[in-house]
């Protein structure tokens, strides 16, 4: 069954989004970066207490996949 082009367009990955993802450089603060600013940031990062992660709540709309055999 041939799909209309509009539907194929929805199914296809967006080139602009893919390109953006490919070129995106994640901003990472490294604690021992050898610059004063980064070093300060690093110290701050190190001193911050990690926030306790909230407990994941069971999702009432959870759908079990097939293939659980």
């Amino acid at each position, binding site marked *: *069954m041939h*799909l209309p082009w509009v539907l194929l367009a929805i*199914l296809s990955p967006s080139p602009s989004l893919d390109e953006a993802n490919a070129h995106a450089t994640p901003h990472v603060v490294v604690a021992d970066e050898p610059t004063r600013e980064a070093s300060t940031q690093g110290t701050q990062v190190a001193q911050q207490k990690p926030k306790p992660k909230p407990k994941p709540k069971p999702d009432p709309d959870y*759908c079990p996949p097939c293939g659980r*055999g």
Partner: protein
Amino acid sequence: MTARCAVALHPEDDLRTALLPLFTEGRVDAVEWTWEAGVPEWLDALVAFYASNHALYTHLVGFPLFGDGASLPRRLAEIARRSRQHRPRHVTAHYGLVQAEGFSDIAPLPPVPCAEVVSTGRERLLRLADAAECAVGVENLAFAFSLDDVARQGDLVDSMLPDQGFLLLDLHNIHCQAITFERSPEELLARYPLEKVREIHLSGGRTTYPKVDPRPFRRDTHDDAVPAEVLALLDVALARCPAVEVVCLERLGGTLATKEAKEGLVRDFRAMRERVAEPSLDLRARAYLPLDIALPSVPARVLRDFESKLVTVLRAAPSVEHAKSALRDLAHEPTLAAFVARMEPRAIEVAMEIEKRWAVPALDSHAIADDE
């Protein structure tokens, strides 16, 4: 009439990109969709398109064909709503227990073979057909506690199907049982009412080797390519199932990380399509004859109590021996005791693993009961 070739849809993105070449070439005749799954925009559009072309098939993963069925009213209302929206060709549910006390979902387990299971299954299928306003079918289960479960499944399914009901024959599930219980797949096929098969499933899985008994135990995990033996079995099934309307390829989303895996899925679909286009005609079907064995009766309350606690035992037991012992203690009645006595230790080990992986504790222990 040549059967349609379908793919099962899931919301994960890797499945979308893997299937895109097939959709682009116009090779996919129909789609199967699980209503219980999430629906991203692309999937919603695809489902609407195939529905408008009368080529949407639906499959229910968590429909309680057996067990206490406390969630049934809620599920049936949702099914009725979805069915009015999409008008699927038919709806299918899994053979097996999918409900247990304290869990909102479990991986399906074989039910106790007894008269109550058949009457419950039949009644639930009639209610499902009423809600969905279309034909309803039952899919055979891969997992079995014993060869007895394997031998009886076809008869039990056949007994509970309503007049317009049909069998969804999962060939990988037959393959799993053939490997695990060392039988020929053709021999197992002959234990099903093949003239009632309206849909066929193909998929892949993996073989595990339980610690208590390292003989191969094949599992239906949908995370690998379709084995050559299953494709060969498709030839046999197509020749023996005269009423097949659709053949569907299943693959779990999130299992197609590599380019090779995606290409493999496309290859599987093409191989499936070639076989469906030119089914073998020279294979003689062996007539299906139900075993002439009267099913025992188990008091409903005793059966429900056993069914509802089965998963708790499997998840809590520290070892296979403990699980078997606890299950024996649960089986207060001769049919249940025989069911537990037949359970193979390696199957108990696999069931423990499956339920630890897939059973979802309910929001609170009374959540299911409160639904009613």
